[in-house]
């Protein structure tokens, strides 16, 4: 153990990699802790080495940036400044008087626990996909858009031969073009957003020409692969007995309701569906970090309001890989400076700060365009399952709200078990909140993933729990006291 301070970065996607490289370059030791067998996160997910892909970039965007990150990581590992802890599924970050202890389960079986000590933490935990329910959404063959992409990028497999890509949001474009390029017949890209809304926000969107070019690139690829685009449309039902064999799509009116007489059936064996992304905030929430809505709140240096804890990337609000890179870089620079007793100089990350401001503006504009249909819940039948884990039908939630007077998600959960299963409400949370008439809040769980009882029981009795003394932050100073 050397005297140099140690930073734990949780997550090896764009934000975590950028934070790791920035902090290591500034002389701080970094433990990069990640659940995957290899760096990259979801965005830069690579085919497993055993698959011997010689041209993985065919499924990727931003390949040059990825190569720069990967080579930088390799150099820092060789130099001994970065330890890359793969297959580490972090379930809890503990704050105590001596700093932080990161608790992880070793994957993939996740039965044995390990700990990593650090003086400060960067949370780069990324996000996951939001999917609103519709009749038939539990049929095998219905997958999240990101899930279809993960299996394609990581496992080099297609779920079937004929796919429909549906929902809303910028993720649908790379998923549709990726599936088509890999040989799937993409029967339709069904987007509920109104293209006219994009035009209305064109000034905000045009502030980033690079992003416009990216959008044009996708449009060209959709044309080249002859993917029919159904804008202002939605999937109203997935059909099949033991597995998906078709979907029914329909046009939406200006209010976001299904237009009568526009339903039509499209045969397919795969539906890749998504309605945007949600930040992973479990670790931040258990550390006591303040959240803004569903995202971790950070300041200009990417610091949370808990001393010694930074956050970057999707965890602080959905904005894509480029924003994650900028935020991660700033977090790494700031953390390294403060850990070595220096006052961070924002001029050293001025470029990243400019990117961050522009990209946040761009994604705020996109967010106002890409929204699920306002009246999506009208398509739910009483027997549509809203909670996939506990098999809770829509009528149970409607009864809890309408007849039993439940006015919040927690009461609905207690009355119906919606959100009580394996995923801890991550999948059904947005829909349950909507049917309950509540704003969406992050799923609050004591641990970020299921933990074997043996691992919990094995926590040493002297392991400190609970909040540390407030006057003794791990980096020896109050980060808000500038």
């Amino acid at each position, binding site marked *: 153990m050397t005297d140099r301070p140690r930073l734990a970065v949780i997550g090896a996607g764009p934000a975590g990699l950028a934070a790791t490289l920035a902090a290591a370059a500034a002389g701080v030791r970094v433990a990069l802790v990640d*659940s995957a*067998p290899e760096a990259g996160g*979801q965005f830069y997910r690579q*085919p*497993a*080495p*055993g*698959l*011997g*892909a*010689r*041209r*993985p970039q*065919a*499924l990727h965007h931003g390949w040059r940036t990825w190569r720069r990150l990967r080579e930088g990581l390799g150099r820092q590992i060789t130099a001994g400044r970065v330890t890359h802890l793969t297959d580490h599924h972090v379930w809890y970050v503990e704050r105590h008087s001596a700093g932080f202890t990161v608790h992880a389960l070793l*994957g*993939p*079986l996740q039965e044995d626990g390990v700990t990593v000590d650090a003086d400060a933490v960067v949370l780069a935990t990324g996000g*996951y*996909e939001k999917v609103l329910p519709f009749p038939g959404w*539990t049929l*095998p*063959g*219905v*997958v*999240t858009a*990101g*899930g*279809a992409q*993960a*299996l394609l990028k*990581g*496992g*080099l*497999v*297609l*779920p*079937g*031969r*004929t796919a429909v890509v549906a929902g809303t949001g910028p993720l649908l474009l790379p998923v549709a073009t990726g599936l*088509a*390029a*890999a*040989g*799937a*017949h993409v029967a339709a890209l069904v987007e509920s957003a109104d293209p006219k809304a994009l035009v209305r926000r064109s000034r905000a969107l045009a502030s980033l020409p690079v992003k416009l070019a990216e959008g044009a690139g996708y449009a060209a690829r959709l044309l080249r*692969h*002859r*993917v029919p685009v159904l804008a202002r449309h939605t999937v109203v039902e997935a059909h099949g007995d*033991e*597995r998906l064999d078709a979907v029914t799509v329909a046009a939406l009116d200006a209010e976001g309701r299904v237009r009568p007489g526009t339903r039509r059936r499209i045969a397919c064996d795969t539906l890749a569906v998504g309605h945007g992304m949600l930040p992973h905030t479990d670790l931040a929430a258990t550390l006591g970090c303040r959240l803004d809505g569903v995202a971790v709140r950070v300041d200009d240096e990417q610091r949370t309001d808990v001393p010694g804890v930074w956050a970057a990337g999707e965890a602080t609000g959905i904005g894509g890989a480029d924003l994650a890179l900028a935020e991660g870089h700033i977090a790494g620079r700031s953390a390294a400076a403060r850990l070595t007793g220096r006052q961070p100089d924002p001029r050293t990350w001025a470029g990243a700060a400019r990117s961050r401001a522009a990209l946040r503006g761009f994604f705020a504009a996109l967010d106002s365009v890409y929204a699920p249909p306002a009246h999506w819940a009208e398509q739910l039948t009483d027997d549509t399952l809203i909670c*996939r*884990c*506990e*098999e809770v039908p829509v009528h149970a939630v409607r009864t809890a709200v309408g007849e039993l007077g439940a006015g919040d998600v927690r009461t609905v959960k207690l009355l119906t078990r919606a959100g009580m*299963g*394996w*995923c801890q409400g*991550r*999948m059904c949370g947005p829909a349950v909140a909507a049917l309950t008439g509540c704003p969406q809040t992050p799923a609050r769980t004591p641990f970020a993933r299921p933990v074997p009882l043996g691992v919990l029981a094995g926590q040493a009795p002297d392991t400190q729990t609970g909040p540390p003394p407030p006057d003794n932050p791990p980096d020896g100073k109050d980060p808000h006291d500038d």
Partner: protein
Amino acid sequence: MRGERNMNPLKLTDARPGPAFTVTLDGREITALPGQTVAAALWAAGVTSWRGTRGAGRPRGVFCGIGVCFDCLVSLNGRPNQRACLVPVRPGDAIRTQEGTGHDD
């Protein structure tokens, strides 16, 4: 278009996988490639469901694909509740459809 007729993900990425090997799903032999997850190997074999839900016994397979939703739980070499989308497949693996909690049989 009817897809790129002769295209597939391995061809697109110019992949030269290591030697294929055999695993079983409920006793039936399936060919898998090194590095694939259990879910990817089953998908490649045309299998999309490998769990019956605890309540209605309905079929489930991959949904989120990144370890969040737990829909893809499977029994692997006698251990129930493994997430097929995370666990790499290994030669000789005995994969079994998981019924209910996976502890019933």
